[in-house]
């Protein structure tokens, strides 16, 4: 089981992929983390603080994304109903 994964790196890459809405990268990460959950990939030891800091980043980006999607949905609804002129 030579392959290893760092949780902090996985979190950082997830946040970066979400920022760019990179579905392929997220799929790849999901497969890798699922493999770790099944014991096929080793989890590399690292400071707890490193993981927690990246968890915070991803959590905040998730929350920001949720808010942004809500905003986009409202804007699109307005446009679809022709509530602004263009």
């Amino acid at each position: 089981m030579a392959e290893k994964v760092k949780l902090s790196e996985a979190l950082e890459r997830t946040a970066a992929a979400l920022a760019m809405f990179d579905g392929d990268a997220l799929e790849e990460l999901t497969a890798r983390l699922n493999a770790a959950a099944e014991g096929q990939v080793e989890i590399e030891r690292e400071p707890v603080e490193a993981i927690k800091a990246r968890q915070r980043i991803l959590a905040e980006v998730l929350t920001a994304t949720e808010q942004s999607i809500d905003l986009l949905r409202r804007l699109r609804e307005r446009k679809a109903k022709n509530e602004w002129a263009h």
Partner: protein
Amino acid sequence: MGSLISAINIAQEALAADQSALNITANNVANQNTPGYTRETPNFSTQDTYLLGGYEQSDGVTSGTPTSIRDRVLEQRVEQQTQVSSQASTLETALNSVQDIFGLTASSTSTTVTALGTAVDSFFSSLTDLANNPSQSATRQEVLSAAGNLATAFNTSSTQLTSITNGLNNDALTIVGQVNSLLGNIASLNEKIAVQSPNTDAGVLEDQRQEAIAQLSQYIGLDQITTSNNGIDLTTSNDGLLVAGNLSYPLNASIVGGAVQITAGPNNTDISTGLTGGSLGGTLAALDTSLPPIVSNLDTLAYSIATAVNAQNALGVDAYGNTGAALFTIGTTSTGAAGTIALAVTDPNLVAAAGGGEGSSGNTNATALANLATANIAGGTTADAYLASSLAQIGQAAADASTNSTLQSTTLSQLTTQRDTLSGVSLDEEAANLTEYQRSYQAASQLFSIIDTLFASALDFGVVTSVS
């Protein structure tokens, strides 16, 4: 899932402040130009007068088309995030420079890796050697040599911190110059837009103004207020008037008593305190919030060691049989101590190794001097522990700044992506984008949960582990 929930709670708390600022700006747009943003009032309505930078402004909007609302809302979100991200990045850079002074890295804040930590340890070690060999001139010389090295280490760190401070002061002045250049440009564009396109989208001119505001957001935190005649007025985040219609109010920046002072508006109101956002906000945050405690801790440590050593040396007898003199030159307060501490003597025989009444070859006072290494002489703790705590604070501040900078940059990337994909595409394409955004959000949420589970499992085992 405890850590997931707590992380999201933290996120929500952290975002509350940002969201509040966003709401204010969004409301500015909505209230000034289109209350119909919430679809309660679809048409423009007459606006009341409002206060801008302490001055009452009149906005007589009675009609118009909210053609640019979509862009402005998203643009303002991007610009606000640019301001936050730029501030975070600037602060991160400043704190990394401080880390470099002390030789700290992201993974190590040990005192032994720092020149100052080594100098402190070497000094007390030389006193222990003196206690063991009080009559040897070499050990006395070693004490003075180590004391001189310690003073130099403090001086060097202090000089480097001063250099960082001076550099940041100059940066602030430079940034203000760049801000002022853009303010004039934006006011000029306001004037052109008011003449050419007071009630409709002004096309290229609006694009130019938006670009100038976007650039401005790199430098300073802004509040935007959309006014009549397609105008945009600007204030700083703490209400300093920057642009009102076709008039710009350049900031004035100067160094007063070593600190940056910035004034704004027609009355030159001092806005130095509470000015946030952009590289200027980051620079001021570093100068006003981050650096002072670091400088203070360094001064306190230098002052504490010097006064404790001088006081103890005065209780002993030197090699000439006289009462010990001060080994360090130090001021009467800790302020500036790290920069001014110096070796006060050059004659090694002036080190008071002996106690009173035991003759000049005694070691009682040398032992007492050496014991200062484990005495609580600095801020209620030992010198070494005080230094370690101070370095840990610097390391933590730098790590926090780095994390925050990454977060803000990531969020900015997302907002920029959304803005860019929203404009100029068909509804069908937009719907596809929205679906893709939602799919990415769900995938990232799922990843968060998976990692959270793995994290908890890893903690349970406490070692490198695979989780089955």
